[in-house]
Every structure is written in C-alpha cells, then in structure tokens.
C-alpha cells in the first residue's frame, strides 16, 4: 500500500523518455511492457528494444485492456502498461474492469502530460477540468494508485509493483518534451516478436 500523499497538482513534472528509461533499467528482462498509442510507445522504443516490449501503434485507449489480457494469460509474469492520459480518458471504464478482475501482476503507468501531444498539444478535457486521474483510479476500485512525487518516488513505486501484489497504478505528471524516438511501424512484426519473447508463439523455428 502506498504511503504517498502526492496529489496531481504538486507532483513534479518529469520527462517521459527519462522515466521510461528508468523503468526499463529497474525491472529487468522478465516483465512484459505494453506501450500505448503515440508517444507512450515511442519512448518505450527509444529506451532500447526488449524482447517483451509491445508497441501499440493504433486505436486509442486499448493499452490497458491489452495488458489485462496479457496479465490474465501469464499470471506469473509482471505486466507494465504505459498509457497516456488522453488514451485512458477514451476508455476510462477499463479501470473498473481491471479492478473487478484484480490481476495481481498488472501495473498501469499513467503518462499524464495533460495534452494530445502527438496532434499538436491540445489540452485534454480532464486537464481543462482539473480531473485527478489517479483519484479516479482509486475511486474505480484500484486503491494501490499513487502519483509519483519525483524520480526517486517513481523508483520506489516501481519497486512496489515488482515486490507486491497489484493491480498498481502510478500516475506520472510529465513536461511537454517531445519523444526521444519513433517506433518502427510494422504491427505484425511487433506482434510476432512480442509473442516469441513471451513464449506464446508456437513455432519450432528460431528467430
């Protein structure tokens, strides 16, 4: 259970690419990481490809439900989902769906820059309204949801995801820096690589 009392308005605004690099360095090889649409998966790609990275190139709002399916299929493996605030808003009900299933191995990292950055930085309705998405997650039935106060607090929360049963939610307030790279755009290849990394591909051939 998180002891953090950080709220949306006093969380430090951090750099997405740097945070994703911290995450990847901290979690090791085994966990799956699902990068949501847009800059969420761009910065996962830019942090260096891992065998168990999945990059979601299209359809807003699906990273969390995809992560739920993966987490239920492989309950002994930690599954981290990187989802943007705009995407989560498009599929907010998934928080209740996850809360109802309580997958102990699932961690949702909310990458909240308050904008639709990839389309020109337009502010989201939640940003305009002052909606606290971590508070929304808690109210949806995910009590292990907390804003990261700063980078050190983020490291602590990631360690909690690795060491304790979830589902967990980590809210990350972000600056407006652009992504550090751009994912190669071949969804079938991305899917194939990920399934091999997960041991889910039924093929006797290497590679």
């Amino acid at each position, binding site marked *: 259970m998180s002891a953090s009392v950080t709220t949306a308005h006093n969380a430090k605004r951090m750099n997405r690419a740097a945070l994703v690099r911290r995450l990847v360095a901290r979690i090791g090889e085994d966990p799956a990481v699902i990068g949501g649409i847009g800059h969420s998966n761009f910065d996962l790609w830019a942090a260096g490809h891992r065998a168990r990275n999945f990059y979601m190139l299209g359809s807003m709002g699906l990273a969390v439900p995809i992560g739920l399916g993966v*987490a239920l299929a492989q309950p002994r493996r930690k599954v981290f989902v990187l989802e943007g605030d705009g995407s989560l808003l498009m599929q907010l009900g*998934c928080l209740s769906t996850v809360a109802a299933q309580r997958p102990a191995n699932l961690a949702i990292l909310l990458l909240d820059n308050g904008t639709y950055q990839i389309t020109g930085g337009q502010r989201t309705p939640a940003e305009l309204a002052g909606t606290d998405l971590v508070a929304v997650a808690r109210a949806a039935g995910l009590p292990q949801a907390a804003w990261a106060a700063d980078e050190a607090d983020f490291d602590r929360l990631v360690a909690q995801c690795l060491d304790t049963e979830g589902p967990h939610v980590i809210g990350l307030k972000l600056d407006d820096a652009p992504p550090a790279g751009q994912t190669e755009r071949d*969804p079938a290849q991305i899917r194939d690589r990920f399934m091999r990394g997960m041991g889910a591909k039924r093929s006797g051939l290497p590679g």
Partner: protein
Amino acid sequence: MLRPDEGGRMSSEQPGDATAWPDQIYDLLKEHGIRQVALVPDAGHARLIRRCLADNAMRVVPLTTEEEGIAMLFGAWLGGEKGVLLMQSSGVGNCINMLSVAIAHRTPCPMIVTMRGEFGEFNPFQVPMGQATPAVLEAMGTLVRRADRPEDVAPTVDATLRLAFNTYRPTATLIGQRVIGAKTFGK
C-alpha cells in the same frame, strides 16, 4: 421440444432440443481451449454466460464496452491464451474501429453475436444497428456467418472459431433473433 433445464442437466446431450444451443456453444468453447471469455451481457447469452461462470478454467470478464473485449482478446493471444467475445448486435457498433487491431496484427478475434432488431423486434433503437451489423463487420474485414435455426448454431460457431484461430482474423457468428426469441422471450 422445449423442456425445463433446472437442476443443471445438460441439454446438449439431446441434439434435437431447440434450447440446447447455448450448452453446445459452451462445449465448443471447451473443445477449442477458450480460457478468456469477454462480454457485455445480453439476455440471449445468459445461459452460456452462466455455464462459463461455473467453469474454473475460464476467466469471465464483464466489460464496460465491447471495445475493451477486442483489446483483451488480443492481449490474451499475445500471452498465449485463446479468448472469445460475447455481445449483442448493438455492441458490434461500439467496437468497429477496434477491429483494426486484429487486422493489423493478423490475430484471431472470434465474436459470438446475438442479434436484435431483425425478427419481431419491439425496440426501435435496436433496428438500425441490427440491420447494419453484418455490413459493418464485413466492411472491417470480419468473416461473418449466420445461424437462423437452433441446429445451425453449433456448427456455425465451430466454423467461425476455426476460421479465427486457423486463419488469424476477426470472425463472427450472428445468432438470429428468431433463434433467441424461441428461448428467451417465452420466460
């Protein structure tokens, strides 16, 4: 030949029984190794949902919208499990854009759809989406097969499950409202 199914008796043991099709679908889900059952409830699926809920080897996931189900089945496949999406024809309209996930990644996405808005419908709101369901599914690259008689349901579901898992694409069985009406509306 209608008969009550109290006491958990297996109607699927009687192939001629017009009410046995939900149990036959359940048997097919077992045969195909389905582990994740995503759904937005429909009265026409109520009996199948009860069977799945009673099965500890199946994870039944109630969704807030059918879109989640398309993504969840995709995640299941990525992790090495098979899933199926149960919904009503109105729900098809909710998940059209998301079918691009299965098309772009070339992954199975079997859907079992109970139809409304086409045979003795009483709700005007069900008619537009019910009439458009096969067209919009096919427009998004889904292979669609219909069952309009109780005895056609199991072979059609079997065929669309095979098409999905063997050819890696979205498929749908549409169970006609005439079939469902015979079971559900008499209660």
